[in-house]
């Protein structure tokens, strides 16, 4: 559905995205993780056309039009001075949605005559989401927006998100949403580092490839263990191993523990910081 070819972007001579080549298919749910400044938000902006790449291009296939693309940016950008009512009229008209379901607004008890800028962060996020839902989106891009939303609203958001996916088979690309509630949903994970994707795997595959071992302070660490990241305290040392292979279980006499997605991604990000320091 989306093909990205040789995408590059620089900001003030510093490379932010470097030669990205990737494809996204219909109905996929992709999670993009990475350290702050890796280029994730810039990548999303290039996908939506908010930023123009320095070189390379983004192709939308299968007749995907901008009207069916939803995007919630990290700044929750919108015309703030409009009232909710005006905003809804505006959005539905411009995107030609043909209708608007205000059940979400009712659920949140939002006053349609209040201005967008008066909404709390969580309310605004859901308001933008409700606008996007009216578009019956085929593609949804979510920047790191759920962190600032309270648990209750987050729950509502997820319900509606899953509904949307079930209804429209939406392709979702979400940045950094590593909450346990969402962990089970993405089937594909990308880790971005220095403007490029260092990991592009199915979630299940990644879970098989990253394991953790815990050692006491005195236990020896084998040299040829591929350690991605380690966390050491006086009492325990945690080593995150990548790429893990099943033969390592017998090869090294160590207990390899499974990790959940959040921890896996944390280890990649941690690994980046380690490399940076070196």
């Amino acid at each position, binding site marked *: 559905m989306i093909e990205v070819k040789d995408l590059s972007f620089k*900001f*003030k001579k510093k490379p932010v995205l470097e030669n990205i080549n990737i494809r996204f298919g219909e109905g996929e749910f992709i999670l993009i993780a990475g350290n702050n400044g890796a280029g994730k938000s810039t990548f999303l*902006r290039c996908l*939506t*056309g*908010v*930023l*123009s790449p*320095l070189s390379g291009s983004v192709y939308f296939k299968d007749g995907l*039009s*901008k*009207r069916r*693309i939803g*995007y919630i*940016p990290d*700044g*929750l*950008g*919108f*015309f*703030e*001075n*409009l009232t909710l009512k005006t905003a809804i009229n*505006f959005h539905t008209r*411009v*995107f030609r949605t043909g209708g608007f379901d205000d059940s979400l607004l009712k659920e949140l008890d939002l006053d349609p005559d209040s201005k967008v800028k008066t909404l709390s962060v969580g309310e605004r996020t859901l308001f933008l989401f409700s606008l996007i839902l009216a578009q019956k989106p085929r593609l949804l891009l979510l920047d790191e927006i759920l962190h600032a939303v309270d648990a209750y609203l987050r729950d509502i958001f997820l319900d509606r998100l899953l509904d949307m996916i079930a209804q429209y088979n939406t392709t979702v690309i979400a940045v950094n949403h590593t909450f346990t509630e969402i962990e089970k949903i993405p089937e594909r994970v990308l880790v971005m580092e220095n403007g490029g994707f260092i990991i592009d795997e199915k979630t299940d595959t990644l879970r098989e490839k990253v394991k953790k071992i815990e050692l006491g302070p005195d236990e020896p660490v084998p040299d040829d263990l591929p350690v991605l990241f380690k966390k050491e305290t006086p009492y325990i040392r945690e080593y995150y191993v990548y790429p893990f292979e099943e033969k390592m279980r017998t090869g090294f006499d160590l207990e390899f523990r499974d990790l959940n997605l959040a921890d896996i991604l944390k280890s990649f990000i941690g690994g980046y910081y380690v490399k940076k320091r070196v």
Partner: protein
Amino acid sequence: MLRKEFNEVLKQSLFFIVLTVTIPFGLEIVLGGPSISYFELFFTQYHLGLLIFALFLGNSLFLWDRKQRAADYLLLLPYSRLRLLGIKVLPRLTAAVLFYLVFLLLYRGGGEAFTLASVFSFTYVYFSLFIIALSLSLSMENYIMMAVVTLSAMAAFLGMIYLIPTLLSQWLYGTDIGLSLEYLLFLRLGFGKLLLYFIGIVVGLLFPFIAAFIFAFKKTGIHPVSRFNKRYFKVFFPLLAVGIILSALIVSTLFTPRHKTYYLADKHRLVEWDSLALRVYDENDVEEITHASFRWNNRVLIEAGDSLYSREYNFPEDSTDFLRLDLKTKSVETFYKLEGRNYSGFTGPWLFKNTIAIVDGYPKDPDKELHLIDIRTKEVKKIKFHQTSGGNVRLFGADEVDGKRFWLVDSKWKFRHRVSRLWENGEKEELGTSRKFPCYINGILMTYSEDKATLTKLTAKGMEGARMVKTVTVGEGFIFHSYQVYDLHKPPLKQTIGAIYDQNNESRKFFIMDFDTLELREMKVINDRIEQSARRDPELKFYVSRRTPDEYYYLEYKWKNRGLDFREIYAFDNNELTLLKKFPPLEKNGKMYNSRSGIIVHEPGKLRVYAFPDLKELKFKKLKS
């Protein structure tokens, strides 16, 4: 989205205009009343406020969308970049135009400072400022810097418009024009040509701003600013270079002094002028006049002594200027000025002894004013008079009776000429009507009815005035020739000439009338010749002209290039025709100029000057054809 933008712009505009106009206006009133009328004060503030408004309107194109937050939403709307730009620009352009139209409607009330020329200047400055401000609306983060840069760019732009013609004319022709653009242009070229030219330059120099902006926005969007600017300048500078070259080309083609016009004045002095300078040649020398006050039209209206008089509309000052070229001192001065274009009179001013008379007033306006200017002292006397019917007014004679002067006024209304006499105390006498142009020679007024010419002697004072002398039945088409009027203050003429015109308005039969007997007698020799020549060449036209009271000339000519093409010129004396000169047909782009002093043949590459009375060729050493 268009609607939203319109709303925002509307609010912005009203707020802004109210701010920039009422505050200074209110302050002035509070601080103690303006020295000009309230309306004039308001209007001055308004038009200044408009300029600031244009700057603001342009720079604020993306005022609320510049922050990343708002830009995120704006740029993901399902509009192409170009369409987005259009949606943003259209409401602002509309506002700019609407407020400008208000200005246009009001300008006449703005007082003396607002002539057509200043309106024109304001227009192109206002819209250029708006466009330049628009094109820089994404180039800077800081709005104050943006305004400063916009104003600087505007200054540079205006400088270029001024400099291009000035430098070019200096470089190409070595002349220093050094005038403001519209002053220069409006006075030399036709209005239509000038407009095209000006639009060409302005558009050519503004186009780089517009194109660069559109290109940079299409390729970059709003962020990052540094990349936007890079792309902007990548397009801007080459286009600017092209624009400058194009403008220079336009200027040079229009400034090429292609059309030289000539006039042979008395004492063998040749006057030549083109769009840049005027030159006076005598046998051995030439003197060039190019200073700023010189703008010479194509026609010499009066030659008197060493002075040539002409008239031209002064666009920047919105006045009709009468110019005088002094052939002795080789200088040009603005001899007299009338306000506006309301100079009336389709044959020019009138010279009587040392007074030049000019009628001031619109053709449709019955209230007119006669201005009498003493050419020695420059004293002016104005006499108001009333024209009962509208129409063009011309002076066709003047005389002095018993120490009192009168001026003869011909007012043409539909197919009648109304003849009246205006005394200098303001009294106006109606002297009847005439079917054709009346004329006045030797104290005798000649008017016409169907087939008769009526000769009336105009005598003394008051309303008694005229006394009919004779009615001459000549036949249809007869008219006395009323040229050479400037000599009327010399000794009275003994004879005058009249001619019968046929249906093609060509003179066919000439008559001479003695002022003693008032008898008309045919100029047989000439009329026979006409018959002969007409048979030989049906396109020929004929004329008898008198240069001095004693010199008559018979001319055979054709029309060519909207001018005369003389073929044969004879001297007529004592009933005998003597051939003075036979001219070959004029070449393709040739032109002939004739004046009282002689005939000039101007053909591409050569110029020949022949002086009366014998049409011998004159040579001017310094003249290059």
